[in-house]
């Protein structure tokens, strides 16, 4: 996308109000200035500009998908993204996992007193870019300011509405024995990138988050008529948890092949050091897709062409055994169960 002239600098002069004050959420002049000069300028949405209590939209006919998620990540800027990019991609991707094309997004900000206005501006620009990439509009929002120490710089909630323009029922109960399990790229980058930044761990090569909008690639797969039975993005809990959830709801056993699951050198090294299993580490641009086996080859070609960051592979299949288990064939030819973790992964001692 071409650089927008308004991206150059924050429209609220730094020397006037360099930081968020309680009054920026107080309903008075400062709050209006924040909305007009910052949010409207960043999102340039006509409905935001009208400053009405709600955005009025035309209801498209057909099935709609509707989702919401909140983002409290620390650090708010990390290699490969920031909290704003994450907040838009996360909601866009949740819509995409139902096969919905994103239309509208709402944004709720909780800002900590003292947050730099310049930081907020950067986050808003990042949100605008991601929404535009996904073809979605940010049309309504809300801002609250809390006392210093009551939140960690900035929390964002986004909700999104998307339209479903196909007849498939993309959900765990639609998967069938024989379905191919496709993964769109290497795993574990987001979780390890954020952890490395937060904990000040340095590795030989910097790990960059895979945070990306998946809407475009899913729309291309649907347009090509790929018979998708189920989709799941691999956020918290990673590949393993997503597959376990799907296996449990579908009742079928899912068999994965360790050697087909790509893990970058950086992520492998970091996981080895900390005692993490990369199949449980969070991603923000990876999904598993269950498709009719005959469509798998074509799907791989489409995913491959969609983004240079993708390296799709068939990583397993659905079996007819009705155990609801996930098993993994290891590199050395043995087999083990993949289960949910009891909590988050914790770095081990030795």
């Amino acid at each position, binding site marked *: 996308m071409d650089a927008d002239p308004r991206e150059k600098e924050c429209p609220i002069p730094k020397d006037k109000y360099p930081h968020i004050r309680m009054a920026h959420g107080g309903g008075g002049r400062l709050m209006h200035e924040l909305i007009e000069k910052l949010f409207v300028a960043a999102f340039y949405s006509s409905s935001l500009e009208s400053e009405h209590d709600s955005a009025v939209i035309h209801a498209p006919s057909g099935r709609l998908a509707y989702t919401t998620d909140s983002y409290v990540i620390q650090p708010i800027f990390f290699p490969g993204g920031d909290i704003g990019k994450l907040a838009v991609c996360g909601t866009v991707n949740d819509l995409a996992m139902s096969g919905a094309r994103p239309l509208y997004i709402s944004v709720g900000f909780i800002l900590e007193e003292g947050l730099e206005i310049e930081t907020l501006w950067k986050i808003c620009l990042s949100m605008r870019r991601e929404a535009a990439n996904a073809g979605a509009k940010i049309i309504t929002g809300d801002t609250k300011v809390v006392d210093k120490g009551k939140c960690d710089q900035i929390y964002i909630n986004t909700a999104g509405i998307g339209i479903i323009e196909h007849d498939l029922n993309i959900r765990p109960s639609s998967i069938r024995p024989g379905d191919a399990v496709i993964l769109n790229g290497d795993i574990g980058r987001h979780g390890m990138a954020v952890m490395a930044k937060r904990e000040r761990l340095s590795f030989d090569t910097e790990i960059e988050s895979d945070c990306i909008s998946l809407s475009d690639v899913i729309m291309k797969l649907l347009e090509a008529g790929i018979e998708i039975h189920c989709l799941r993005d691999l956020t918290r809990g990673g590949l393993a948890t997503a597959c376990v959830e799907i296996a449990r709801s579908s009742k079928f056993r899912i068999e994965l092949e360790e050697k087909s699951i790509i893990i970058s050198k950086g992520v*492998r090294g970091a996981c080895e050091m900390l005692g993490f299993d990369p199949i449980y580490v969070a991603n923000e641009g990876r999904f598993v897709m269950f498709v009719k086996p005959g469509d798998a080859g074509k799907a791989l070609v489409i995913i491959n062409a969609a983004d240079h960051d993708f390296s799709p592979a068939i990583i397993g299949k659905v079996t007819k055994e009705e155990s609801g288990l996930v098993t993994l064939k290891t*590199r*050395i030819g043995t087999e*083990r169960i993949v289960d949910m973790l009891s909590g988050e992964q914790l*770095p081990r001692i030795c």
Partner: protein
Amino acid sequence: MKYIDEYHNPRAVAAFAEKIKSITSRDWNIMEVCGGQTHAIVRHGLDQLLPDRITLLHGPGCPVCVTPLSIIDKAIEIAGRENVIFCSFGDMMRVPGSAGDLFSVKSAGGDLRVVYSPLDALRIAQENPDKEVVFFGIGFETTAPANAMSILQAGLVGLENFSVLSAMVLIPPAMEVILSSDNNKVDAFLAAGHVCTVSGFEQYEELSAGYSVPIVVTGFEPLDIIQGIYMSLAQLEDGRAMVENQYSRSVKREGNAEARRVMEDVLTIVDRRWRGLGMIESSGLAISDKYRQYDAEEKFGKVDDISDQSGECISAEILKGTRKPFDCPAFGTRCTPENPLGATMVSSEGACSAYYSYRKLDLQKTGLE
């Protein structure tokens, strides 16, 4: 990736599995001492590649598992105090004490930090001069030098608000407890490679000679472990008993002299209770008198020695290699990683926890669940 890919090579692993099959003539029990090795064996399914006549027993080498209840209770008490920042390795945070774990102290408002090195705790102490910063110093010979180094550093910069709660333990005394017990089943040991990187293996030569038991210093990748099994089996089948070093890319006979010197300067050998195994003579490391101002027990009171075995739990027998996780009637039902009854279920490197994560399928097959 160097030192990882080549040690996951399926052809090389299969070749060792074949060699093992070809030389096994009778039943043998081989114990891997270290929890990291247990985890790798179960995760990669290495035992599935072995003949039925070879049984792997899972030893006491998980420092999180064997930290006694009394020290965890002390940690929880210190962590809950006003004005304390309590620093711990991550996997110690959810190990249950008599009532609750360190995470429950955090959610009740305590200031707990997960750190990756004791030196992180030292930095936190420097940044917070008005707080008492306590580091939970658990671990074997592997982590002891870094814990000792943090105390040396604190002394060098004259820090007064830093201390270490020591739960450090030594591996050879625990191996000796196993070997000297009446119902010992262990025919050979895979010794823990990382421990020996620091301590070397001279001490193991005495054990091996004294009890006529083969000991192979072994690494942690699949190929390391299967090669270690092969080497110990070859000794057993030949009627030899000596110390061999599979992990020579990391371990020297004399260990790491500088690390040992720091340990000897700062730490002193004491008797210590092990969760599951009970009191073991000369098996613990405490902070020496010279550095007592950095001993959390000096600042916050001594640990009360209490015993800690649930009536139903068989972790003592598992740690000694006389029983296996599936032998326990509570396994997977009354005892799970969420509600562990004893040592071997509390950390992901404990034998019961590893079986719970990766082996439930086998349990279903045997009809126990």
